[in-house]
């Protein structure tokens, strides 16, 4: 369920300063979106794949698997955009018409859809670069350095930690229910899931109280203050990132991208 998370802790770029990785992912992502050019999208896709597979050492098969995850949403979205529904007649590459309605695909629609498809894939590869190389604790660190309010950071810390605890509990309850045939039919599945959710909620409530006790016994008085991890910036990395992103930006201008 959380394989992205485990790669984040075990990849070869784990020790690189998280701010460098965040900057690389975000700047490239924004250029890719802003450019809206096929060439830029392909370049971003290529660079990010190389970074993830080549530098971070994530197996290609694994990365390809991750990239295919959001494809269903993407295809539905893109096709919906490509299809035009109208009462006016139009120039369709392919179309149906009945009862005065025209439903079809126009050349402009297809072009827009293809650009959008690759733009999204490029953007998704940036997202994956970040999430496969940077553990959540490091992302929280960057947000803290960016002066995001402490309350927000603390809630993130707690939620991240307890996602794993509760997921384990949920799995145990689910296992125990299915070993007593709790998911053998639709109706029973429904009530089993309802019981799972309520039990999990009650447990979450109890856990929060016990956590409060445990933290209070360590002198908690309202703030979850902890030591920062320590990272070193690398001038070499930063120059490399700047060069890459300038290159992509130049390519975008050259290929005529740039409209929002």
């Amino acid at each position, binding site marked *: 369920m959380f394989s992205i998370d*485990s790669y984040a802790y075990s990849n070869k770029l784990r020790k690189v300063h998280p701010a460098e990785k965040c900057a690389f992912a975000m700047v490239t992502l924004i250029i890719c979106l802003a450019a809206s050019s096929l060439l830029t999208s392909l370049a971003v896709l290529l660079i990010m794949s190389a970074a993830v597979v080549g530098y971070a050492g994530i197996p290609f098969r694994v990365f390809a698997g991750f990239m295919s995850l959001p494809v269903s949403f993407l295809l539905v979205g893109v096709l919906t955009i490509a299809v035009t529904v109208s009462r006016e007649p139009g120039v369709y590459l392919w179309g149906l018409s009945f009862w005065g309605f025209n439903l079809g695909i126009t050349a402009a629609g297809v072009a827009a859809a293809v650009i959008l498809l690759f733009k999204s894939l490029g953007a998704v590869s940036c997202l994956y670069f970040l999430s496969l190389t940077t553990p959540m604790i490091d992302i929280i660190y960057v947000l803290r350095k960016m002066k995001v309010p402490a309350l927000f950071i603390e809630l993130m810390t707690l939620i991240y930690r307890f996602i794993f605890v509760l997921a384990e509990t949920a799995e*145990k309850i689910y296992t125990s229910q299915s070993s*007593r*045939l709790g998911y053998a039919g639709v109706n029973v599945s429904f009530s089993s899931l309802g019981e799972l959710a309520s*039990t999990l909620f009650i447990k979450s409530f109890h856990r929060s109280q016990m956590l409060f006790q445990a933290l209070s016994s360590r002198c908690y008085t309202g703030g979850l203050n902890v030591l920062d991890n320590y990272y070193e910036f690398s001038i070499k990395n930063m120059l490399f990132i700047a060069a890459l992103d300038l290159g992509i930006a130049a390519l975008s201008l050259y290929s005529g991208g740039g409209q929002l």
Partner: protein
Amino acid sequence: MKEYILEAKGVEFRYPDGTGALNGINIAVEKGKKVAVLGSNGAGKSTLFLHFNGILKPHKGNILFNGQPVCYKHKQLTELRKNVGIVFQDPDTQLFSASVWQEISFGPINLGLPKEQVIQRVNAAMEATGITGLKDRPTHFLSYGQKKRVSIADILSMEPQVIIFDEPTAWLDPKLSLQVMEIFDLLNQQGKTVVLSTHDVDLAYTWADHIIVMEQGQVVGEGPPEVIFLKEDLVCNTGLERPFIVDMYLELKKSGYILSNKPLPRTKEALFALLAAQKTAAV
């Protein structure tokens, strides 16, 4: 010929994170026996149990029930789970219903039994575990020991042929442990095969007919308790301890207080009897 109710043949299984994996397990559980599975945390005991019940499916190898390979289709799985029940380690994650009665009836209702039979089974299960008085209590307010009993009754009400207990005595005080073990003996006397995992070598030594020792997803030793615990290197290498009775027996023998070549005593009482007999003989 021995009749095996549960078997694992060359079972391999791997979790994504690598812990608790099984690396080619071969085990045969004899019908009607009391079997204890020993092994350190993460040796793969719980993973093996989830295979016996069809919750996990081996990546390689087979699980056999009553000599038939398990088939992972809806109907056959239901049949398997009806016959092989697992009582999980932590009753807090097993119990999920509002009342004890609802909780115990969950299994039999899912078996599609008629209402009268469900009622009768739930009552029988509550009686066998001594919790009849808790019938209408909400499960959240029970003590740990009571929850443990409810979690056992949960499975009893399905009337399986094999009952598997994952660490049944963890967190129970000695008195409750003893009571729980008595329930197991009773079940065994009724003809059920009882399998349990434990860290308590003293308990395993006294209780089990057959002991299986697991280490890093493999079976590293198997046999009657009197044999297993005399294997010096097996006990040392797997982080087990020798049961106190065995230790004491060997020490007494070394010191010459026990001379007989009788088999190892299985209980404290048997050891004491041996001592007393020796004394009488000496006089």
